[in-house]
């Protein structure tokens, strides 16, 4: 059989997953919807952001939730000059690990900056929330982080 006889077709794997959050993730997402951040206290007193039900190292249950952010420090960053179709921003941006003020772990999010020269490890950034009416209780409620005192 000629090679061209082999069939091909597009296959789309698609499902609208709906996840129950449980109390801790739910509290964080609720806070996001309210335009603020919370973290959870880990077994050694470190504040984990975003919070999980468990300490990311010891796996013990986390303690009380505490308010953190909205400003923070870039721990590492990567400049995306050609965003992919599902990325949160469609113009050039940075992925960054950001330690929010009051937190001891960094969280992943996008930074909207004019260019790679505007960012460095250690740069202070702050969250730019979507308008209240558009917030649904998801990471996307933070449109992006921006450089503190920056032009954007």
């Amino acid at each position, binding site marked *: 059989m000629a090679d061209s006889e082999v*069939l091909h*077709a*597009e*296959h789309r*794997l698609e*499902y609208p*997953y*709906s*996840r*129950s*959050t*449980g*109390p*801790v*993730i739910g509290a964080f997402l609720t806070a996001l919807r309210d335009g603020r951040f919370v973290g959870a206290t880990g077994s050694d007193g470190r504040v984990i952001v975003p919070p*999980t*039900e*468990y*300490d*990311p*190292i*010891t*796996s*013990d249950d986390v303690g009380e939730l505490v308010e953190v952010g909205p400003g923070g420090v870039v721990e590492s960053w990567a400049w995306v000059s050609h965003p992919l179709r599902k990325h949160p921003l469609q113009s050039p941006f940075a992925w960054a690990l950001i330690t929010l003020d009051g937190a001891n772990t960094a969280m992943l999010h996008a930074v909207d900056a004019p260019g790679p020269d505007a960012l460095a490890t250690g740069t202070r950034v702050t969250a730019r929330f979507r308008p209240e009416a558009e917030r649904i209780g998801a990471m996307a409620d933070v449109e992006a982080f921006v450089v503190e005192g920056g032009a954007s």
Partner: protein
Amino acid sequence: MAERCAVIGVGQTHHKAKRDDVSIAGLVREAAKMALADADLTWSDIDAVVIGKAPDMFEGNMMPEIYLAPALGAVGKPMFRVHTAGSVGGSTALVAAHLVSSGIHKRVLTVAYEKQSDSDAMWALSVPQPFAAPLLAGAGGYFAPHIRAYMRRSGAPDYIGRMVAVKDRKNAMRNPYAHLHLADIDMKMVEDSMMLWDPLRYLEACPSSDGAAAMVLAAEDAVSGNYPPAWVHGMAMRSEPTMFAGRDQINPQAGRDCSADVYRQAGVTNPREQFDCAEVYVPFSWYEPMWLENLGFCDLGDGWKLTESGATAFDGDIPWNASGGVLSSNPIGASGMLRFLEVAMQVRGQAGEHQVDGAKLALGQAYGGGSQFFSMWVVGSAKP
């Protein structure tokens, strides 16, 4: 050369159609923390973690050991993920047990789960792919023709399936963790339930559940916990091809071989006599008589007679699925481990209201796919 291995802790969630009160991590931690508490251990006492579940598409979370490592106390430890279709809960326990019996680890935590309400089981089990046959029959439609073939081959009367459906749901009334608690279940209620895939009625099929199961397995010198250990006397897995000419789907060779292997290891020559109870993967009622024959609890063609006689009922001489079984709770990836876990509970004497009096030796069985994957273990209260 193999070291002795024992179950020293068990835990399971309350199984429900939708556990909308927890995240995926919250669900598995509920079972794992209960197993640790039962073993009187903490996360740091565990050497390695083995998880199992059915297709990742149920939750849309690829290779979930990556996300779940910190949720299950695995940071800095070996973590492993098993996937062998519906038998996975059983084979996950076996992989964990081999880590102990090989002498590599002292205490291993094993967890199986499914949070299928994040998506939809029917969708995730049969994601339509190009060029595949059009979706003709749905999930039960795969098994219903084999049930019909069993009825023809054995001459079983049609009410046998209904008897199993009633028996297992009555048993579930004794199990606080079971998904289905149908207080009024009786033959008429099953007969009146909707005919889904003739000859299979709604109440003769398993539910779709969220849930998790966990066990702590330990070497002989690491035994701890609130109950006596359940010693592993034998373990085996067998697979055969999914479709081949002359395949016997009613009495698969892989199931026969698997039980022969596990019986040899455990010194079992007469399963009905020697076992005090069994937990066997029966997702559709008719699989009880089929597996009674496949597992050698009776002669070929006589499985339905054993069911009809009441031998497999809670007060029978060889209770099957005293927990209520898969017909009462079916968190797919965990369903096999629940069978293995429930027999451990029985021989440890911790099964509460569904405790089979004086259970000392028991068989746990799981199967998957189109009855081509099998895993089994035998546990006992005495050291092997």
